[in-house]
Structure formats: structure tokens, C-alpha cells
């Protein structure tokens, strides 16, 4: 089987699994949250993996949009679909602003600029009255989609999220394999040369930024809708760090990496206590029970291990392994 068919099969199976998940007893809210983060990570990866720009401020887009969507739905009484659109748009707008500054510098400087600007937004959200400060924006109603489908029903909500996330993911796939994606690749490889071929590279990079931010915004808005609130932790820099971790764990610059990575990280974050409990019971070592309180230590450890030993991430390693296997067969 060639790799293309194989991956198509993989995505197909994943999609079917997601379709069936709530019917098979998976906990829908949790899976929805997973999907939101998967979209967030994919959006982030669109920027980093395909243009080489590392944004350390993606929380701004996630959180900013989450507040915008939440506020418009809760306070202005917008319908969920309008709220989502508005959230996405505000993500895009923030992306435009941050991107405008970030593309002025290269590499790590640009990264630090995104971090700093996101930090600014954090302070704004901390103080702005509509965000509810550290209490967060609570009690956002899910409402009725198009006035018809009652999203209060977890199952309905679930399939809406699945549809939206799938569509957004397909858009990302298409973007990467588009004429525009080709130019992005070229810019990533050799920017001065791209300029000399008549490409106004800044505008391409800016568009990439806006696209990525818009999709991150969509993820944030969806998350608000699903969970019913938006809080400061969405705009905090650690959320930006998180999405980097997800992408890294899954495999940077691979399409499937962020999906896998976000699943692993979110699961870990939510289940590490249970895992520790289990380990403690199985092994009889009481220390494992403290695992639940050491999420940051474990997260830190994953970062270190990933960077040192596992740089291509789960999917990256898998792909490399498959390629080697095929090469071996050929030889």
C-alpha cells in the first residue's frame, strides 16, 4: 500500500471512530475538548510547520476569540453560529495585528514579539470589565444552532463540533497543498530569493499568520461554546507553550502530528492523576500517587525528552519508520 492511501485510510478510520465515539460510550464533552485542542494545534502547526515562524503567542488568538465569542453569545444574545464566526473573525484580526509586528523580524526575535504581544493581550483581558477578570466569563449558553438544533444536548453539540473541526482541518490540508502553500514553502527555504522572484514575502507570511490565527480563534470559540466559559488561562502564555508541546509531541510539520499530540497532551493533563493512581496500585509504589500534583514536572519532562530524543514527534517518527521500512523493502 502506498503511503498516500495508508494515510487516507488512517484519517478515514479516525473520522469513523470519532463519529461512533459517543455512541460507544466515550465521554462526549471530553472528546469535544480534545477536538478543539486538536484544531488549535493544527492551526498552530500551519504556521510553524509550513512557514517556520514559531509563534509563542497563539494563546492570544485562542483566548481572544474565546472571549469575543462568549461575550457576543452571552451578553449580546448572538446565535452560536454567529458567535463562532465572530470569534473566528476576531482571531483573524488579532492575527493581523500580531502578525504585522512579528513578520518585521526573523526567527527567534519574531517569536519573542508574539510572546510579548500576547502578554499584552493577557493584561488587557485581566483588566477589561467584560472578561470577568480572574473569575472568567462564565455561563455562556450553547443556544440553538440556526435556531433549530438545540446544542444543550451533548450529542448534538458533539456532531456540530466534529463537523466544524473536520471542515477546518480539510481547509488546512488544502492550504498546504495549494499554490499559496508552495510559495510559503519557498519562503521558508530561502526568503531573499523569493523576494527576488517578485514575491512580496511579508504579505504571504502575514496571510499565513492570519489564517492560523483565525483557525485558532475558531478553536477557542468552539471551546467556549462547548464548555460554557472563557477564562484567563486561555490567554496565558502557558497555553501558548501548551500548543507548542502538542505539536512537538505529535510531530512538527506533519498534518497528523498535531492531532495525535493534542490528544496525548490533553489526556495526560486530565488523566495523569488516574494514571498515577493506577501505577501506584499496580506497582505498590506510593510515590506515583503524587503524580497528579506534578503535572508541570511531567510536562517539563516531556518537553525535554521530546526535544532530545524524539524530535520528530510521534507521527514524525512513525512516518520516518515507514519510509525506512519501504526503502528497506525496495533495496
Amino acid at each position, binding site marked *: 500500500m502506498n503511503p498516500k492511501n495508508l494515510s487516507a485510510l488512517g484519517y478515514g478510520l479516525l473520522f469513523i471512530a470519532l463519529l461512533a465515539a459517543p455512541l460507544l460510550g466515550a465521554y462526549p464533552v471530553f472528546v469535544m475538548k480534545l477536538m478543539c485542542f486538536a484544531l488549535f494545534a493544527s492551526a498552530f502547526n500551519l504556521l510553524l510547520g509550513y512557514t517556520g515562524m514559531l509563534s509563542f503567542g497563539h494563546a492570544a488568538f485562542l483566548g481572544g476569540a474565546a472571549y469575543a465569542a462568549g461575550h457576543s453569545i452571552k451578553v449580546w444574545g448572538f446565535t452560536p453560529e454567529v458567535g463562532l464566526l465572530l470569534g473566528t473573525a476576531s482571531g483573524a484580526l488579532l492575527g493581523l495585528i500580531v502578525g504585522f509586528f512579528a513578520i518585521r523580524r526573523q526567527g527567534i526575535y519574531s517569536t519573542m514579539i508574539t510572546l510579548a504581544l500576547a502578554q499584552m493581550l493577557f493584561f488587557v483581558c485581566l483588566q477589561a470589565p467584560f472578561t470577568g477578570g480572574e473569575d472568567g466569563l462564565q455561563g455562556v449558553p450553547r443556544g440553538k444552532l440556526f435556531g433549530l438544533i438545540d446544542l444543550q444536548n451533548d450529542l448534538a453539540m458533539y456532531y456540530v463540533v466534529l463537523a466544524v473541526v473536520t471542515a477546518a482541518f480539510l481547509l488546512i490540508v488544502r492550504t498546504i497543498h495549494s*499554490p*499559496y502553500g508552495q510559495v510559503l514553502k519557498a519562503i521558508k527555504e530561502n526568503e531573499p530569493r523569493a523576494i527576488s*522572484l517578485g514575491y512580496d514575502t511579508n504579505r504571504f507570511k502575514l496571510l499565513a499568520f492570519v489564517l492560523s490565527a483565525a483557525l485558532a480563534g475558531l478553536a477557542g470559540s468552539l471551546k467556549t461554546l462547548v464548555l460554557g466559559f472563557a477564562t484567563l488561562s486561555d490567554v496565558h502564555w502557558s497555553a501558548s507553550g501548551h500548543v507548542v508541546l502538542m505539536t512537538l509531541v505529535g510531530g512538527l510539520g506533519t498534518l497528523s502530528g498535531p492531532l495525535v499530540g493534542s490528544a496525548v497532551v490533553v489526556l495526560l493533563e486530565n488523566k495523569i492523576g488516574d494514571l498515577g493512581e493506577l501505577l501506584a496500585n499496580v506497582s505498590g509504589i506510593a510515590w506515583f500517587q503524587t503524580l497528579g500534583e506534578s503535572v508541570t514536572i511531567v510536562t517539563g519532562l516531556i518537553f525535554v525528552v521530546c526535544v532530545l530524543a524524539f524530535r520528530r514527534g510521534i507521527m514524525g517518527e512513525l512516518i520516518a519508520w515507514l519510509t525506512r521500512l519501504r526503502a528497506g523493502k525496495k533495496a
Partner: protein
Amino acid sequence: MSDVILETQHLTKEFKGFTAVSDVTLSVRRGSIHALIGPNGAGKTTCFNLLTKFLEPTSGTIRFNGHDITREAPAQIARRGVIRSFQISAVFPHLTLIENVRIGLQRKLGTAFHFWRSERSLRQLDERAMQLLTEVGLEDLADELTVNLPYGRKRALEIATTLAMEPELMLLDEPTQGMGHEDVDRVTQLIKKVSAGRTILMVEHNMKVISTIADRITVLQRGAVLAEGAYAEVSSNPQVMEAYMGTTDGQLQGAH
């Protein structure tokens, strides 16, 4: 249309008190191969950088096809049809050869920002891309990754990509540098070939190349024009010999 395609007037570039290009007035005739030579540090590359706006001139004007382009951005100038190559090879290393060339062709399609369109829409360019690769003798390597090429071939690829832009004016900075003799000859012929229907301005130290293809030569020294004329004329100029060739015995030949 006038037969001067590019013209500079009193072009000057200063770096913190050091004048790298001083008062250069140059006109390049349409359809010619115009060479810029001069000792190291004479300001040739700087001149190129000014013409393509990779550097901002301190004073002076640049006119291309009668338009004043002195204040335009690099990408804008490129879109006018002024394309340069770099002194150090400039390719997209992790794209295949054909993709490299396609990047050059793609801009004209006008779909460069279309992130919703399929990559397959670029297939229509493949034929032209192969043609260009064939022109520089790289047709067999079309699907190789560019990183794996030796230096000389990268330069050839670079020329193919530049050609894809169908430039009116091509600026080549030492196109044969770092090449073996075989390659030098091939690239020289290539330049000659592609000069049909366009103008070429090149910097080159290899006198053999210059004597074979250049129609007109401008000699720079310390940022200023020292002499200008056809090869025979310039090469017998004692000042040029003294400053550049290093031998005044009249027998002009390159180091090569």
C-alpha cells in the same frame, strides 16, 4: 520605446562615511549583454544591490524603461521584470528542481495567494518548467531535491528559475563563480542563448567569459566609473590594465 532599458544617474551609496558607489551614471542598452567589472571592492555588488533596491541609494536616480524606480520596493522591481541572481547561490534547497522553477513561473498565474485552490492547478506549469530545465541541462534531475546538487548545478538551476520570470533585465552577479571549466563554458553559452530578447547586466571576474559574450563593459574602480566601451576598447585601456588586470604588457587575458 527607447533603446536604453536601464539608466542610473549620479548613483551614490555611502556607508558611514565610506563611499562604496560614487556618482555612477550608467546606461544599459536594450538587448545587450552588459558587463560590470572592476577590482575587488569596487562596488559592483553594491551597485546591483542598489539597482534591485536591496540597498537604499544615498543619492541619485534609477530609471527602468523610462520609469523612475528609485523609491520602489524590491518585490515591485522584480515584478517590473528586473530579476537578479546572487553572488552566493540562491535556490530553495528542500524543493525539487522542478518545484524550484515552478516557483518562478507561478507568480504569473496570479493564484499565489489562493490557499483554497489545489496544488494540481500548478501542473499546467510543468511543461514550461521542464523546458527551462532542459535549457540548462538539468532535465534528468527534475525530481531530485535541490540540496543534493553540487554547487555548479545549483547555479544552473538558479538561472533556470530566473529565466522562468521572463525577465526583461537580468542581473547576474558572478554567474560562473565556483564552477569547473565545463560548467563555465556551458553557462556562458547559456547566458548567450537566453540573452536573446532580453537584456543582461552581469558582474564577472572571468575575462574569458566576458570577452566571449559581453557587448559592452563598464569598469568600476573605487565606486566610480573608470572606463566604458566594447571589450577591445576597454581591454586596451592602460588605466584598466593597471587597476584590474595587473599586467600592463598589453596582452590582455583573464586569469582563466
